[in-house]
């Protein structure tokens, strides 16, 4: 797993969900652990799109339930 991507996802998560950096673990679920509701998730996904310059289609948002899953998803999406 890319440490660079992980740290950028954590940074975006801290910013968007107003949580403390130490709370944002690879295993953290955005909704179950970090207090996000469905609208927060939409906004978080938009922020990740901006951060990484990618498009995340609505039907793939369901794959991004945890910080680690977001990192894996973004790794797949980024040009090699």
């Amino acid at each position, binding site marked *: 797993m890319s440490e660079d991507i992980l740290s950028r996802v954590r940074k975006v998560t801290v910013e968007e*969900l*107003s949580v403390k950096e130490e709370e944002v673990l690879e295993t953290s679920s955005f909704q179950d652990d970090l207090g996000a509701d469905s*609208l*927060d998730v*939409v*906004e978080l996904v*938009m922020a990740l799109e901006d951060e990484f310059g990618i498009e995340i289609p609505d039907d793939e948002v369901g794959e991004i339930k945890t910080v680690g899953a977001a990192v894996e998803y973004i790794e797949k999406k980024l040009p090699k």
Partner: protein
Amino acid sequence: MSQELARSGRVVITGLGAVTPLGIGVEKFWQNCLNGVSGVHQISLIDPEPFPTKIAAEVLDFQAEDWLDRKDARRVDRAIAMTVAAARLALDDSTIQLTDELKDDFGVFIGSGIGGLNVMHEQTRIMYERGPSKVSPFWVPYMIANMPGGIVSILNDLRGPNVAAVTACSTGANSIGDAYHVIKRGDATMMLAGGVEAPINDIGVAAFCAARAMSTRNDEPQRASRPFDLDRDGFVMGEAAGVMVLEAYEHAIARGAKIYAEIVGYGMTADAYHITGVHPEGRGARNAMLRALDRAGVTPDKVDYINAHGTSTPIGDPAETLAIKGAFGDHAHKVAISSTKSMTGHTLGAAGAIESMVCALAIRDQKVPPTINYETPDPACDLDYVPNVMRELPIEYALNNSFGFGGHNVSLLLKRV
């Protein structure tokens, strides 16, 4: 509703929360009103350079982070954040202890003339610049004009009736009058009631400039809002949130609450005349005042103070003057009248709320705040506008007037308890 006390239908004001250009917190607001302080300055929330009007009455020291958690503070509309603050201040001022039973019987009527205009404007810009997929999921909840009251109910767990009036510049007065009726008819024991407006952004300033309604006295901001003065040239836009606690009289007495004043009359009419222009003879305004008096069973000569709508527009102020003469007859020349918009600017949907607070405080302290910037009398405005200096006066009844685009007219009559 709880029935342990027989209810007379009397409704009193037991808490005030003010977030205004004259200060945050009701005592600071009120002292500045009495001292004739102007809250008008060059606009700081946006770059005023492109606009014909470059002045407004802003709540300079307001920070959303002081009142909301970091996540909400960052993204709610300024109108919502200011309302949350005003509601908190009003609840604290009332010293009410919220029990589970009371929360079911505690409602919220808080409206806004426009709603979350900052969020609406910003997200519309994003849609055109970056495309529809970049529009925030929070556009809808933070734009709709009923959300300030919705969020206040959520944060304070208030589960009674919850409605938002949207009647332009009479919104705050309608909200208080409607909440008064809710308690009077037994649908709630307590209500938070008021209004909010946070219109100072590019589209808000541009739109009111386009309507040719605002003063352009840019080089003298503090002298720009001059209701009833001959040289007035339009209103000065302001932002504010005003929320008051209304309470069934017996409930307030039983808990030993501090009571500012009683609400005894609520008159509502429509001009049925023009979308933005007032009826030239003030027909609807006159009838709203007469209805408020009639509902209270009070004759016009009993009214000691009128907080006028008095926006400082060339046409509005003489029409209100005629309306007061029509309603009060000879007593029109004896009653003390002032427009605190001379100091606060015109806070649109909040105006009726903060000006009803002025009436309540005038009754409490037996003092009338002045109309500042009154220098040259206008023959068309020939009543006693309490020019420039506050006045000590025995006040038994005080009336608040609020009129809005669309032709809405509201008068609220308050009585000393």
